[in-house]
């Protein structure tokens, strides 16, 4: 693959990293405005924000400014250093995810050969931050929330990875770009017009991935760690101001990243039917296509979030270990058999 500009490696990476850093707040803004503010309001027969800017689009800017003005409070008993580090660790895990998300043949910060493996690894880093937050807050609700989060995220990490395995077996690669290419060059019963998005062959894996991602994002029905009506916010109960903002951004940034991973692995990523996979125009059109697919998937994530009640902790664990993991193992076996037979 060719680069657009012939820059030294470190300059190019620097520019791309800067872009990725700028993209995280933007994507969180898009998701929060579109889904948390507007879609949720319309589902609940409310209007949502409509005063700040056209259709309330500037509401989020106002909220961010509000958070920045707030006093930064540390609880007296808190382990101050860990308390301060926790939101950075959580947001850092989100940021590391963005590094490998491809938006075009060349529009990616770092095209890792172990891309999907890396994504799974860094996304589980956020557990560490959440545990740190829960422990260092010196608050019983936060502690309960942190422990619940740890139990839940570890339990759902497994079906997430196992679901991804099906895709990896079918695409014969861990590289996200090559997964996109494998889908673009695939055929459905000899018809290659739209490639072969893995959602058709890996539908079970797609469902398991989405459910496990919902749990990873601690969204309803798996929002036990933050359960407002019982734990009053769980691990981030003691955070104020910009530290809370970091948690908030990480939550929606990760939602965006997981939606992006799902659209890369199951919906064909940035490829547009009718174009060559290394056509340069895809570097321009690809991000738009990706954004559309990501918004579609996040729509489902948030739709479920606003509709369902939450499960209890033991039911949640039972669901992961007794249903999702056996199903995803079966999916791997099936995929393997089909791979050998065809």
């Amino acid at each position, binding site marked *: 693959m060719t680069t657009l500009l012939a820059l030294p490696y470190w300059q190019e990476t620097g520019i791309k990293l800067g872009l990725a850093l700028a993209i995280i707040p933007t994507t969180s803004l898009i998701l929060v405005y579109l889904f948390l503010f507007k879609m949720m309001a319309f589902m609940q027969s409310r209007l949502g924000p409509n005063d700040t800017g056209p259709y309330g689009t500037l509401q989020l800017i106002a909220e961010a400014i509000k958070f920045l003005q707030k006093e930064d409070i540390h609880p007296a008993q808190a382990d101050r250093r860990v308390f301060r580090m926790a939101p950075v660790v959580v947001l850092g895990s989100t940021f590391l995810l963005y590094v490998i998300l491809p938006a075009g043949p060349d529009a990616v910060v770092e095209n890792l050969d172990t891309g999907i493996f890396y994504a799974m690894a860094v996304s589980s880093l956020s557990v560490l931050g959440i545990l740190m937050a829960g422990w260092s807050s010196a608050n019983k609700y936060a502690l309960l929330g942190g422990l619940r989060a740890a139990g839940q995220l570890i339990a759902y990490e497994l079906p997430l990875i196992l679901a991804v395995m099906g895709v990896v077996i079918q695409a014969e690669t861990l590289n996200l770009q090559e997964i996109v290419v494998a889908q673009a060059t695939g055929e459905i019963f000899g018809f290659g017009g739209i490639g072969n998005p893995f959602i058709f062959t890996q539908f079970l894996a797609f469902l398991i991935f989405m459910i496990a991602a919902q749990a990873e994002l601690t969204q*309803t*029905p798996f*929002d036990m760690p933050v359960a407002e009506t*019982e734990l009053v916010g769980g691990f981030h109960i003691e955070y104020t101001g910009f530290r809370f903002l970091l948690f908030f951004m990480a939550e929606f940034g990760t939602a965006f990243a997981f939606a992006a991973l799902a659209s890369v692995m199951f919906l064909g990523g940035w490829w547009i039917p009718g174009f060559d996979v290394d056509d340069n125009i895809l570097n321009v059109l690809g991000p738009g296509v990706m954004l559309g697919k990501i918004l579609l998937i996040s729509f489902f994530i948030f739709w479920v979030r606003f509709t369902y*009640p939450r499960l209890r902790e033991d039911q949640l664990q039972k669901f992961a270990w007794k249903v999702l993991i056996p199903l995803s193992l079966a999916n791997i076996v099936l995929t393997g058999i089909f791979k050998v037979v065809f």
Partner: protein
Amino acid sequence: MTATSDREQMAYISSQAADARVNVELDTGDMTLNIGPQHPATHGTLRIACQLDGEQVIRAEPMMGYMHRGYEKLCEVRTYPQCTTLINRIDWLGSFANEVPFILAAERLMEVEAPPRAQWIRTILFELSRVANLALFLGDMGVQIGALTPVFFAFRDRERVLNQIEEVTGGRFHPNFDRIGGLKDDIPKGWIEETRSVMVKMRTFCDEMEDLLVGNEIFQARCRGVGVIPPEVALGYGLSGANLRASGVDWDLRRDANPGLAWDQIEWRVWTHPDGDSFARYWVRLQETREATHMVDQLLDGLPSGPIMAKVPRIIKVPAGEAYVSTENPLGEMGYYVVSKGDLGPFRVKIRTPSFNNISIVPWVMKGVYVPDVITILGSLYFILGDIDR
């Protein structure tokens, strides 16, 4: 001994002590978690002191009194008509229903009876406040277990009922409309038709709740078999209202001890559920809300004409005596024990509120449940803080 060896000896002793501390088994004692007084699930200021082993509750103790406003005492320094202003605020979600038993007790002491039309309108407003009250419960239960949307539907549709109450009484929450011997006013023109259409909408709301929550697998998984109260325990703790009927006890004061309102002149049934769990309590309240809308329809059909006020003196003096009247309020049995010495105001008022008894079962029912279930059980027991502390 030199000073150096002294220091060495001290260092040795302290290092031994530190080792000993490490070797002591880590203490895994129970954790005491105070749910409340400020907590979203208590919708008010109730404090529940839970002793936790991990997430399991070993002991839960409700502590009330954070909102005590001394209404029983305040009633003693007010005249009878002034008292209704206070007792409106006991169960603030269904406040018209609070006034009725007090007024009925005063009427019983004075030996006056309101004319039939007044009794019928009282019954209509009573049932409307029941619909308004329970509608909020139906949505709020969703929030307690994490579904955000139902409560907004509940607020939207409850507003219609409150509008109807406001149109008659002039107050959304605190009507203060019931008078000794009848009512303050008649219903306005066109109100009957409007109320009918509102009742249709409330039935749609009940169907929506049935779709959103009752039929939802997660809701059922969270509520079925959680917080089971057997009938004899429920009776032993003095539960009343839907909490008792959800345990399978067929007991409704509207049917069993009607103090003269129009309930015995219409067709309706008492809903019970044999299970006694959180789901049963939700289900019974859902059916009751729907039943109440049908009752309002029938009451509107059969509304008699005539005066709305009996002949009572301008300055009300209640003859000496004692009376206890209780009615089936949205939350359960609400009763007023009024003692009069023949003055302008009562000598003593004892208020029996349903939530106080309903919440007293918390230590029994919460033994051994998990923290998330504490919230579902609290939500399904359905208490109003003003009703506990009054």
